[in-house]
């Protein structure tokens, strides 16, 4: 936790969680029941994290991810923390390689959600449903990592840019420090955990 950031990002290894909470016999994230158990284990960890949290959900050790599990572990997890009256939980998904990507995109789009994901080592993308303005503003923030108030005006000079940035904030896809007002790309905030 720094002066600028009232949160301490945590890493949650889904492969590890799967073995500890569901079964030590299987390493695949398949079946809705398994997905639900893993999601509930993640939520239990988040309850201990307080009113504001940022989690790196690591799927690197997962070989197979089916649609039912993607719906539980990604879409439903995000849904639980959407809305202004909810606990402020931010997520970055790690290890979203090609075999998992399609399943995650499908469940996100079906629910009108988006998520920040590391799709290759060091490469972050916005997956799921986002408007052109949201995608453009997210990319601008992602490329810079950090934006001050003045810089926001520069990078979001096009119509709708600033609104889109606010929208990213409400969708928990970007973080604005309540202390300094600076905007942070979520990937930058978890970089020390990668």
């Amino acid at each position, binding site marked *: 936790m720094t002066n600028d950031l009232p949160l301490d990002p945590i890493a949650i290894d889904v492969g590890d969680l799967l073995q500890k909470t569901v079964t030590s016999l*299987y390493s*695949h994230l*398949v*079946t809705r029941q*398994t997905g639900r158990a893993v999601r509930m284990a993640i939520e239990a960890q988040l309850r201990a994290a307080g009113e504001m949290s940022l989690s790196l959900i690591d799927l690197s050790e997962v*070989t197979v991810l*089916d649609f*039912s599990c993607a719906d539980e572990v990604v879409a*439903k997890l995000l849904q639980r923390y959407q809305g202004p009256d909810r606990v402020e939980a931010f997520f970055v998904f790690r290890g979203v390689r090609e075999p998992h990507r399609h*399943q995650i995109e499908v469940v996100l789009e079906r629910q009108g959600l988006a998520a920040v994901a590391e799709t290759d080592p060091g490469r972050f993308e916005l997956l799921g449903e986002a408007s052109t303005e949201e995608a453009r503003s997210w990319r601008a923030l992602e490329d810079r990592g950090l934006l001050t108030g003045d810089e926001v005006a520069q990078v979001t000079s096009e119509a709708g840019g600033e609104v889109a940035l606010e929208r990213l904030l409400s969708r928990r896809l970007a973080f604005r420090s309540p202390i300094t007002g600076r905007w942070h790309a979520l990937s930058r905030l978890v970089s020390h955990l990668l």
Partner: protein
Amino acid sequence: MYVITVPGSLDHQTVDEFLDRVAAADESRALFDGRHVRWVDPNGMLALLAGGAAIVQRSGARPRLELPESADVVGYLSRMGFFREAQGIFEFEDQPPRRAGGPSDVLLEITPVRANPDVHEVVNRVQTRAGAILASKLDYPGTAVVQFSVILSEVCQNIVEHAESPGWVAAQAYNWSKRLGRWVVAISVMDLGRGFKGSLGAEHAARYGDRWSDATALEAAFLHGLTRFPDSGRGQGIQQIRRQVQRWNGAITIRSGTARIGQVPEWDDTPPLTDGLAPFPGAQISIVLPARKVGDA
């Protein structure tokens, strides 16, 4: 004794004819005459099990199974684990052969699906075997094994989540040199549960009124992703299986009750919807994935 003649070639193209014969059996004692079976694929094997189990369900009496005269077919049934499952369903005149030990060429032996751990078991098994077969026989990319596992996982979950009755899954690769000039992988999943109409009825039947039937229930699930759960995240499994099978230029058909619905490519002449079949319990899913041709994506 009611005699049900098993077609000489019992595969995805003849299972409906066979299941219709089973549905028509109207005596408590039944005999499955399989002596002339020369060829059987996973659909045929599971149809035999489902047919026998349907008779037990209906009459309480185990039917008798006359084994194929062909030693090759009996050996193949044994390698696929057919007799292990058939022991509790059929009566046999002679003791059926035990499965030979040693390495197997089978992609996925007949595996019972009753609960969540069974789906994990299926995915685990195919992960170790499917990669090599999909690459060498079908020329699919290395990542295809994950999509293949996802298909199996979702299709097996259909039993766990909706059928409320156990079922089976099996898969094998074949060289369809005469029929298609290519290798294929055939996947079959069958159960004797409440079927699509039974699963969706409480939630959706009223909206369809008089049109509600096995055919409309299949259309609702297969084409529109309807499910009995109000949760909008549900109903994706079959939709996504259908799309992945289409990407691989494969065929998928589902029989439930009196109807069969399908999505078939140009090489398969199965009609997209067949209605008026004999009522048979549960759901019977067939997927055929062909090898890639030069020029395929």
